[in-house]
């Protein structure tokens, strides 16, 4: 760890120094990137504003974190005890994983009031991570100890209580750690969606038009620190509790289920139908429970009506398709660029181990940053064109992919690497024979992981800056009170994200099966 640190410190030092010089000289976009000292001075000037904004964001994300994780752990336990339930909830789980939070923000603001939209979005941000960590932790128990409990007449609940729950704590804790920054991100994004004077997201949005880069950077810095702290708290807690280190990458694979062994085809079909229909039932039930009038809150049927049956449905469809046509290509290009960049850097990591050792901690830190919430900062530097969207997509794709790939390559046993070398293979040949194939499963996992983030990044950029695509359509519909369109964009963007996830998964399964490899969990 100390060696990591000694490699990283100079890198950080140089970066900060370059930042300060570039900022002071106003070299980037006419002063859009202020020097660090300028940011800190502005922070000090604004010190009176911050406490209330910070409190609002911390409160909403903390409450959401608590609620989301409680539900996630309970759901995880239920899924482990009942595989059928897990299968049924699969559709809901995938939808929650894949949904771009920004698409939900306006809906939540419409249907809920006060802090509730922020709390809900924060809770949704943590649910999937903690739920899958819980399921994985509970599933990986020592079968012998479970046998022991059963040998004394203990049932599933006794095994859960005595063996599984305690054994899952390391996984749950690492889930909480990765989820914590997501709660902050969720709360900030809900603030973008409107409502409420206080909160770092509102502050950021409010300051965007004032052309004061130093203040925007200050807010971004504070948001990053809060997210980083929430991560650090759980890192320390799990370190104390377990004395072990765990991977920081996200787990995107859905926990394995029983595969439907021993079920009749009719039952299979029934469960599959339930899986697909359940998310829509929950959507419908949410609206009925909140009691918001039909005019504002659209049920699945309402959205269908708006898009296909109503008089103006053709116009609505046209707008939506045009927006999709703008959003999807740029998302794809940005993702591919980010993934290729990460892949090349990761597979060459064996050649420059020193550089990777220095760079890795920085890449890890970015995992805790609410990268996509920092879009306003990038707007300052890159302006409002396509390059902005592209850079956001690349950055939200590159870092997680890079971390995952490096961790994957590091798992290759030394002996496997030594073998080609022992026969005098060149570095390039070794890479081709070992590193690249070894990294492939992780590349797919990273793609799955980053699809929703990339879509989120693009939509935020569109919403705040470029004035194109789904994000912009959502923002404009908000202004026109076009409720049907708000719900349609939300539904379509979730469905597109889910479809992309499954698309990647299908390609992944086919490719890896052909190569005789396993998908990375």
């Amino acid at each position, binding site marked *: 760890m100390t060696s990591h640190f000694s490699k990283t410190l100079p890198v950080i030092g140089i970066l900060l120094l370059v930042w300060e010089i570039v900022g002071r000289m106003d070299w980037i976009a006419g002063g859009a990137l202020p020097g660090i000292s300028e940011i800190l001075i502005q922070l000090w000037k604004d010190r009176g504003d911050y406490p209330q904004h910070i409190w609002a964001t911390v409160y909403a994300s903390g409450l959401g974190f608590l609620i989301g994780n409680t539900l996630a752990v309970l759901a995880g336990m239920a899924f482990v005890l009942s595989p059928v339930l897990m299968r049924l909830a699969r559709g809901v789980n995938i939808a929650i994983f894949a949904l771009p939070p920004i698409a939900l923000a306006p809906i939540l603001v419409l249907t809920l009031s006060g802090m509730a939209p922020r709390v809900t979005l924060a809770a949704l941000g943590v649910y999937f991570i903690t739920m899958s960590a819980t399921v994985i932790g509970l599933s990986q128990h020592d079968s012998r*100890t479970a*046998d*022991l*409990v*059963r*040998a*004394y*007449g203990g049932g599933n609940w006794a095994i859960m209580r*005595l063996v599984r729950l305690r054994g899952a704590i390391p996984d749950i804790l690492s889930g909480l750690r990765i989820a914590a920054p997501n709660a902050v991100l969720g709360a900030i994004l809900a603030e973008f969606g409107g409502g409420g004077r206080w909160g770092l997201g509102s502050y950021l949005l409010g300051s965007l038009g004032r052309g004061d880069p130093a203040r925007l950077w200050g807010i971004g810095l504070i948001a990053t620190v809060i997210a980083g702290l929430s991560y650090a708290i759980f890192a320390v807690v799990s370190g104390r509790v377990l004395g072990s280190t765990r991977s920081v990458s996200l787990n995107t694979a859905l926990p394995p289920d029983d595969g439907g062994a021993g079920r009749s085809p009719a039952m299979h079909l029934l469960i599959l139908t339930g899986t697909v229909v359940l998310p829509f039932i929950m959507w419908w039930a949410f609206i009925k429970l909140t009691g918001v009038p039909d005019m504002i809150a659209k049920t699945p049927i309402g959205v269908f009506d708006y898009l296909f049956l109503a008089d103006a449905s053709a116009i609505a469809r046209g707008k939506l398709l045009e927006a999709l046509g703008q959003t999807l290509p740029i998302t794809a290009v940005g993702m591919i660029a980010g993934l290729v960049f990460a892949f090349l850097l990761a597979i060459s990591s064996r050649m420059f181990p020193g550089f990777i050792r220095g760079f890795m901690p920085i890449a890890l830190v970015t995992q805790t940053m609410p990268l996509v919430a920092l879009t306003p900062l990038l707007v300052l530097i890159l302006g409002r064109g396509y390059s902005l969207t592209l850079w956001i997509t690349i950055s939200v794709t590159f870092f997680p992919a890079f971390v995952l790939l490096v961790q994957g390559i590091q798992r290759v046993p030394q002996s496997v690497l030594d073998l080609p070398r022992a026969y005098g293979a060149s570095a390039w040949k070794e890479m081709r024979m070992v590193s690249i194939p070894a990294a492939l499963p992780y590349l797919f996992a990273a793609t799955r992981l980053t699809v929703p983030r990339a879509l989120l990044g693009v939509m935020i950029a569109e919403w705040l800056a470029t004035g194109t695509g789904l994000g912009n359509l959502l923002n404009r519909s908000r202004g026109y009170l076009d409720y049907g369109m708000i719900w349609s964009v939300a539904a379509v963007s979730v469905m597109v994200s889910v479809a992309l996830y499954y698309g990647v998964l299908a390609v992944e399964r086919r490719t890896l099966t052909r190569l005789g490899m396993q998908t990375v969990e």
Partner: protein
Amino acid sequence: MTDPAGISLRAVSKIYRGRGKPIEALKDMNLECAPGSFTALIGPSGCGKSTVMRIALGLESHDEGDVQIAGQSSKSATAKGVTGVAFQDAALLPWRSVQSNIAVPLEVLGRNPREYRDQIAHLIELVGLKGYEKSLPGQLSGGMRQRVSIARSLITSPAVLFMDEPFGALDQIRRRQMNVELQRIWLESKCTALLVTHGIDEAVFLGDCVVVMHANPGRVVEVFEVPFARPRSQDLFSDPAFHALTDKIAKVLHGE
């Protein structure tokens, strides 16, 4: 009905139906262990000897035949704490101390571990782990962990004790020491014991009788009575009569 504390398997068969051909794990398996006796079950890997134990404990179902533990079904026997069990690896919960691991069966059975405090202390002493009550499994050697699992198997004062290669992970020297210790503990507890093993030495040293099984399908081929008086000491391992018997069993085991 068999005697209250014995083990009785009559005409038990078990077929694994997976992908491909069904596997006859056990066919017409008969096993009678008299109350208070020590039976060693030996056979090549894959002969179903562990399956016998798992069926007797109710961990696996069987397709045909009758299983009685202490005169009742395995389900009712295990739920009453009549049985004790030790597995090949110690199967300790890594976050629980030695004494707290020994109390796991009590908690499963819904008993209050505090009422067993003296008994836990006694068992820890019996297996020679005094002073390690509060240690975690990770701080113990493999042999010590195995002794914790033996102590745990005795905490309910079981009338019937099942052991599945409890010393399989130990080296020869440790293993013989543990055999002597196990005999001492068993003589003290007076329970009916069934030991599943693949060591002929161990089977003969510990058993009143040695049951030899063959695979495909899993079945009993011969039962040997072991005549040596108890308590048996380590010297027995070098006794010519001991070797004559192990050679005889080896021949049957290898199908000669």
